[in-house]
């Protein structure tokens, strides 16, 4: 009669997603062809263009403002990196900004993943009135630019006395249409309907089904959605720069202040850009494969 009994009877489903097998079978386009040297050369050029601005950010951040104004521009690292990072951390408020951004991005990520999985599950596997229309509406909402909401939101937040507080940037993105659609697309094929039915037969309530069947089956997609949402939340720009200011900034708000002359030292600005990007670069280093997989997966089905 206890929870553990139900857990035992509803086994963890195979979490390997089906699409991988499918891709391997159809293995299209040039996949069968080995790349020639020309391919590698062109790819290297693309890779250099992708990485060079980032490497150069680090180079510029290790120089002085005066050196950056001289020709030719520096091509190798100087000795001022830590001094500039320190300055960006203290003067541009990047310390507070990093803390705030971590808080905001983690909250948004956790909530988006959970609520998107719930909604995605409902759209994928449950039958209810207007489900198709509501799903279409969900997809349609992705077309609405954020500009359409910011004026009223700004007015309301000031009336509530919330201006410059973090909940103003957290609340509007607690769950996204993209996340809902992403989870729906995944669960449609990754979650066998029989598994839910079996749990139902055992008398599991909807919440138990979610906890013991849906979440385990959705775990790989939840991880990917979490990474994508974190990137999105960390980089969100328009609403944060309206709702927050330099007194209590996120990283993007602090970088915006840097760019509009808050600190006139170019080397410090570059140190700020480097600091603000570093968490995501580390995430890409650790989970790059999963992020790439997530984007490609979303694409095929989307």
């Amino acid at each position, binding site marked *: 009669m206890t929870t553990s009994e139900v857990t035992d009877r*509803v086994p963890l489903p195979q979490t390997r997603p089906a699409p991988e097998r499918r891709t391997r079978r159809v293995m299209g386009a040039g996949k069968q062809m080995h790349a020639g040297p020309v391919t590698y050369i062109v790819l290297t050029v693309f890779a250099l263009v992708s990485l060079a601005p980032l490497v150069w950010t680090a180079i510029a951040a290790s120089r002085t403002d005066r050196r950056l104004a001289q020709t030719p521009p520096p091509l190798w690292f100087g000795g001022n990196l830590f001094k500039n990072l320190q300055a960006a951390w203290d003067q541009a408020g990047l310390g507070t900004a990093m803390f705030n951004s971590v808080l905001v991005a983690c909250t948004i990520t956790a909530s988006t993943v959970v609520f998107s999985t719930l909604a995605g599950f409902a759209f994928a596997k449950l039958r209810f009135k207007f489900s198709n229309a509501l799903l279409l509406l969900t997809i349609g909402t992705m077309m609405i630019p954020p500009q359409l909401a910011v004026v009223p939101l700004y007015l309301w937040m000031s009336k509530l006395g919330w201006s410059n507080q973090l909940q103003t940037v957290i609340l509007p993105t607690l769950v996204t249409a993209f996340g809902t659609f992403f989870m729906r697309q995944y669960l449609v094929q990754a979650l066998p309907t029989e598994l839910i039915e079996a749990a139902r037969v055992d008398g599991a309530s909807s919440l138990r089904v979610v906890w013991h069947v849906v979440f385990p089956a959705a775990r790989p997609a939840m991880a990917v959605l979490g990474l994508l949402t974190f990137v999105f939340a960390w980089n969100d720009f328009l609403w944060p720069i309206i709702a927050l200011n330099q007194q209590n900034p996120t990283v993007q708000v602090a970088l915006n202040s840097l760019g509009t002359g808050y600190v006139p030292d170019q080397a410090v600005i570059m140190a700020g850009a480097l600091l603000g990007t570093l968490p995501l670069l580390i995430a890409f280093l650790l989970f790059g494969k999963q992020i790439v997989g997530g984007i490609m997966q979303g694409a095929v089905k989307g």
Partner: protein
Amino acid sequence: MTSSDQALAHAASSADAAPGSSPGAARGAHGRGTPPEPDSWRRRLYRWDMKASPYAFISPFFLIFGAFSLVPLLYTAWYSLHDVQLSSLDHQTWAGLDNYKNLFASEFFWNALKNTFTIGVISTVPQLLAAIGLAHLLNYRLRGSTVWRVVMLTPYATSVAAATLVFTLLYSWDGGMVNWLLHFVGVHPINWRESDWGSQFAVSSIVIWRWTGYNALIYLAAMQAIPVDLYESAALDGANRWQQFRHVTIPQLRPTILFTVVVSTIGATQLFGEPLLFGGISGSKGGSEHQFQTLGLYMYDQGWIIGNLGKASAIAWSMFLILLIIAAINMLLTRRLRKSQ
């Protein structure tokens, strides 16, 4: 794992127990034989749960969407018909269509619309073309294919703000990397921030840099889903690699291309962060001559720098209407494409 699988299969096959059984009765192997209590509160609760849970699961999304998108969208329309000033938020006086009249009479609005279109085209077209080419290369059997893909995606990890700060420095007039590199091929220093096309090109290049890899991955995913026998039969017909790319890959990618065009168009219409930061202190004006002021930037400038939130609302709704027109055109084109096939 296997034994519980069997238990599940058993539970599913004994269908007679399934529909009528109350939740409590079926729990545990020994409970299966017990007859269900008729119409107990549990059973009612269970039925209610089945009916209500889908709505409960989707409600967080629709609540958030309603409160922070749909209602604000309507209020934006309402405010666009009012005089709302940042300095006195509580005083909103009815203004009819004044904001719109004001807007359409302003040369800066048309300038912003033109810039949004130009920058949109010179950032989207090269970006998507490069992305298709890159995807084609990534689709070969590569050594370290994952590493290549992650590297191409790293610009996507860079925020608009960070990327623009870096590019602004790269494009600076004296001592900038771009002008220094150009002098090797005999080009005189270009004033990237002040010139018309130079600034628009520079802003576009930031967009291209950040999004080419992302779009390439989307195309790559679509390419990998193309059935391999299409290529085999094309090869049997004597098609070389280029002809295969032209006559098999591109037609098969058509829905994906359409999808990326739509997404990029939506993104281009809202373009905001890149021109704002590229302009430095005069960022919200889009340069000294408004040479790279986009609609998104114009709205921010009118709303939060000048402080006319009513006019900003009118700009926002104009953007929305433009997007709806684009969506309609897109739908017509898609339908015609489908008919012609």
